[in-house]
């Protein structure tokens, strides 16, 4: 029946080969109520998965490709990049991951796990590729890759392949169930820290802030039209130590304007911890500045 010279048949065979090549690296993480989440085998004893969909527990049962089960421990989580690293109680054989390259319009395959050690596949194209971005949790992600694939809930956390079989990254459900990719480069950057420290350190000021317009009369002195008003402070946090009080409008941190959040987030990376910075703010109609030392954000 099937004509091996037929283009569509060859295309289909190539797709199944890609899935077969990667399916030993796809695992199911068992969740309560008979549900599961997909994980991706990064090396013999480490899997990564989507942090936002992994319940706050320390241990899980993992169904390997083929159906055997292994117990596993969560060793580190980073909500900022949506990466959770889970360590298997016994190593399994694993292939190596070859990073892929994302191009708009290129074919993409999303591989998920079913509950019993089988694979699930979906195909689409890369809808958008944009430069590095910051998540609402403050993590830096190397590339913004959006897919036109309708990802199933249990398939989140699996690998996304390009046409050559390279791994673009880990699938993640974005706003309105949009499928986005946490790039392989980000996973390779974050996972070693997660395995070592269990978390990604970030700096903080210890303040809850609200975006406000700078009153017109102060616009010239402030040099910007908006800022972040202090709503509350954490006792002994860097902002409180510097003498910042509720009601102050913060204009810049370490020279970076609070008009753009990503400037501020970029200034509060792991390297900021222990750094002395200037906080410029408005209090009682005057622009002033104080110095403080960034400390590490306590874990939630």
């Amino acid at each position, binding site marked *: 029946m099937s004509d091996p010279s037929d283009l569509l048949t060859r295309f289909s065979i190539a797709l199944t080969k890609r899935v077969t090549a990667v399916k030993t690296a796809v695992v199911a993480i068992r*969740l*309560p*109520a008979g*549900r599961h989440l997909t994980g991706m085998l990064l090396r013999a004893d480490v899997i990564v998965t*989507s942090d*936002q*969909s992994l*319940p706050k527990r320390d241990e899980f049962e993992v169904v390997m490709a083929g159906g055997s089960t292994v117990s596993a421990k969560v060793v580190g989580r980073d909500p900022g990049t*949506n990466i959770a690293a889970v360590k298997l109680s016994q190593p399994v054989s694993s292939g190596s991951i070859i990073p892929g390259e994302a191009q708009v319009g290129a074919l993409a395959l999303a591989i998920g796990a079913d509950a019993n050690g089988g694979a699930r596949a979906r195909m689409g194209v890369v809808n958008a590729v944009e430069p590095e*971005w*910051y*998540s*609402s949790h*403050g993590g830096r992600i190397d590339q*913004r890759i959006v897919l036109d694939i309708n990802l199933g809930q249990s398939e989140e956390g699996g690998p996304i392949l390009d046409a050559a079989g390279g791994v673009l990254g880990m699938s*993640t*459900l*974005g*706003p*309105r*169930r*949009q499928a*986005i990719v946490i790039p392989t480069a980000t996973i390779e950057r974050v996972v070693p820290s997660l395995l070592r420290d269990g978390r990604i350190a970030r700096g*903080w*000021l210890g*303040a*809850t*802030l*609200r*975006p*406000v*317009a*700078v*009153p*017109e009369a102060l616009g010239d002195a402030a040099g910007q*039209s*908006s800022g*972040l*008003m202090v*709503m509350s402070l954490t006792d002994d946090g860097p902002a409180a130590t510097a003498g910042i009080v509720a*009601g102050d*409008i913060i204009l810049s*941190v370490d020279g970076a304007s609070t*008009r*753009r*959040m*990503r400037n*501020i*987030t970029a200034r*509060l990376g792991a390297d900021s911890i222990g750094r002395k910075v200037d906080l410029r703010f408005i209090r009682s109609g005057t622009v002033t500045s104080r110095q403080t030392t960034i400390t590490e954000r306590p874990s939630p």
Partner: protein
Amino acid sequence: MSAALKPTPSIQLRVAIHATTPPRRMALSKILADAGYIVVDAQDAADLVLADGDCAQIEDTPTVVLGSVDRPVSGSLLPGADAHQIDAALRAVAAGLIVRSPAAKEAGFDQLDESDVQGLLTPRELEVLGAIMGGFTNKAIARHLDISLHTVKFHVESVFRKLCVRSRAEAVARALDSKHFRTIKL
């Protein structure tokens, strides 16, 4: 005519409550009792379950959850849902429907929200908007903030312009669902 078109008989539904704290349980019990439900103990047979997000257990009984929950449930409302919403959700779920609050949108891993600096309110305008939401008149706002009535009117106009609204009611509705009361932890 089919049975589905008959009006629902006014049977009293039995509801079990899983609340985070005893006072919260009492508050929810009162809402349910006022709406004509029978509140039963957790171990008793119930037609429905009303649970706070953190307390939702795995149930076969149709469940309405107030807050986020990490598995599919029949009804999902915001933690601060009012009595009317809770009643409507319980009745809908009892009738075999699925209830979602549009505000309790499916979250997802999202980008850092660059605040749209156009149309942000000044601290004074936020105070005035807060007072409008509290149902204060301009006169009361002037007294409360210790500013002239003229200045209050000026701020109210500016708030209306920035929110693109024409009435106090519209301003309240817009404010409840807007960037102006969003906070960021740094």
